[in-house]
């Protein structure tokens, strides 16, 4: 009887010790944060900037976090497998950084209610799925103003990836700004149906230049278009990262995404338990979007105009989608004195007047 009591006590003590050890282990265990990228980290564009954000988390929290990345993940079924894998392997916060990861993210989120998900550029939230994006169109507005002043042929070439609202919005913002300063200028769009294929992006840039474009804009991720513009002696605007050194003569500016602060803030929120599902859409004001250094060849008055527009957007006195806005058929979409609301911006699937060609459906 006595021995069995001692035995039982020992077992109980042992169990307590084990559970205590586990608790400390749980405390010491770093928070695992996962990232799913659509392109390679070395694309020097979109994915590269997200990876800079991941590094910012590493820097901010040191041993308290452990970040994992999976790059070049195809949008669709393959991405679901990758996201599920991350969730199942103990990642408590997962960033999925492409529009096409939206449904896979939501699907996985359903089976892992305790894991927090952050989906970039999407529009569907859930209890444990936040969305975030930068108001790229603010940068496109500034790029459009500059392009309108710099073009001589009055044709702006625009390389589109996929006809999703985010890309269409950029094309429209560019066109509206462009026509404000140069009503004769139009935008020619070529869709390459890929986010990342340097060869194809370069060929698209050359095709647009051959058809008369003298300013090339892109919503794809590699610097190939900048190189093509440099080679042919026309202007270009970079995407996601500063691409100046790929075409120092042609690079007017670039619209740079800066995810660092947001990523650090969301990681911190998970750590202190204040994380809530949210929809963040920040822009120039919050610094999620920045303009790369302007090319020295831009005349002073044009530069002043660009900087003024930037300041006005930050101050909130200028909205890139201020009415009146007409669609391609000439139908009024936004009356004068009104701004297009965020909901319509997020689901934009029509071209404004001044864009050439038909939007693929």
């Amino acid at each position, binding site marked *: 009887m006595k021995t069995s009591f001692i035995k039982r006590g020992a077992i109980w003590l042992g169990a307590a010790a084990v559970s205590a050890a586990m608790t400390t282990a749980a405390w010491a265990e770093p928070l695992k944060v996962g990232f799913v990228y659509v392109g390679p980290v*070395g694309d*020097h564009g979109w994915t590269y900037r997200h990876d800079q954000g991941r590094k910012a988390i590493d820097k901010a929290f040191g041993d308290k976090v452990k970040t994992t990345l999976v790059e070049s993940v195809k949008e669709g079924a393959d991405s679901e497998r990758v996201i599920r894998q991350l969730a199942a392997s103990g990642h408590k916060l997962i960033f999925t950084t492409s529009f096409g990861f939206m449904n896979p993210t939501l699907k996985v989120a359903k089976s892992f209610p305790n894991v927090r998900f952050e989906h970039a550029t999407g529009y569907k939230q859930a209890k444990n799925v936040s969305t975030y994006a930068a108001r790229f169109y603010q940068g496109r507005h500034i790029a459009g103003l500059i392009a309108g002043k710099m073009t001589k042929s009055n044709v702006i070439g625009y390389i589109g990836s996929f006809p999703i609202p985010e890309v269409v919005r950029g094309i429209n913002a560019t066109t509206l700004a462009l026509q404000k300063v140069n009503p004769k200028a139009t935008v020619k769009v070529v869709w390459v149906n890929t986010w990342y294929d*340097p*060869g194809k992006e370069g*060929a698209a840039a*050359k095709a647009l230049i051959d058809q008369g474009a003298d300013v090339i804009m892109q919503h794809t991720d*590699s610097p190939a278009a900048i*190189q093509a513009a440099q080679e042919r002696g026309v202007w270009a605007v970079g995407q996601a990262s500063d691409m100046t050194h*790929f075409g120092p003569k042609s690079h007017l500016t670039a619209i740079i995404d800066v995810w660092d602060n947001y990523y650090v803030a969301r990681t911190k929120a998970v750590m202190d338990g204040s994380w809530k599902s949210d929809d963040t859409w920040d822009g120039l004001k919050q610094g999620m979007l920045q303009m790369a250094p302007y090319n020295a060849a831009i005349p002073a008055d044009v530069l002043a105009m660009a900087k003024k527009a930037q300041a006005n957007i930050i101050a909130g006195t200028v909205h890139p989608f201020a009415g009146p806005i007409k669609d391609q058929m000439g139908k009024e979409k936004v009356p004068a004195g009104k701004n297009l609301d965020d909901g319509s911006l997020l689901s934009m699937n029509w071209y404004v007047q001044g864009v050439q060609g038909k939007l*693929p459906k």
Partner: protein
Amino acid sequence: METLTAVLITVIGAATPLVFAATGELVAEKSGVLNLGVEGMMLLGAVAAFAVALTTGSATLGILAGAAAGAALALVFALLTLTLLANQVASGLALTIFGIGVSALIGRSFVGVPLQRLPQLDLPGISDLPILGPLLFSHDALVYLSILAIPATIWFLERSRAGLILRAIGENHQAAHALGHAVIKVRYLAVMFGGAMAGLGGAYLSLAYTPMWAENMTAGRGWIALALVVFATWRPGRLLLGAYLFGGITVAQLHIQGFGFDIPSQFLSMLPYLATIAVLVAISADGARARLNAPASLGRIFYPEA
């Protein structure tokens, strides 16, 4: 007219890496070895060429490094499939995946570094001719090399003794072996030639087409090259035609969009593959005629003792 010239020059650029990679694969397949690792070998060639050209400042060394790197990776494949008798399809796929990874690893410090484009060889006087000058006489050395590779390959396969032996081995390795030909040795050389050519295709991408290194920058061109070999029914002349057709369609669909024609760009993107499928169907439907050109021992493992 000037626009047309510019468009055609872009087509040449799009076709050249395909000509290199597909010609190399054609020779390897003629010897009876199916190497699906073209994409991986192109990538390794691209990164090696870029790295060497950037660090030494010599484009020539870069081109040689690209070819050498492609051949080196092909040697690994040859070792696996010819000496260790591993399955060719599986090894080729593994080679592609390996090539993607290892090229990204090597290229880590070269991301975002610009490089001077491969110089164009201008012939004074002739290059200034209207239309013909820019179209025919103002390209870089690799473009000329890719075109010269075609008659050279035709001569080798059709006219030279070594080429006849290579084809005999590809048709029936047992019979060739019985006649005393060194099946394994010839296949080693053919596979390595294929690798070197794929490496040159990669070098063209990273030195001339888009002079930079970016991960996975071939973006599927190795697979197009593989399809091209079938499309050309193993004939180098048709291969050249096919490569320019594939390159032409890629560029044309961008122009068609720019002009605002209402054809879905996705439809145009799939045309080259549709054509390949059509050729494949033709081969299986009219076996007697078309299969004459397909190496009968393609993809089959050779057991020397059997």
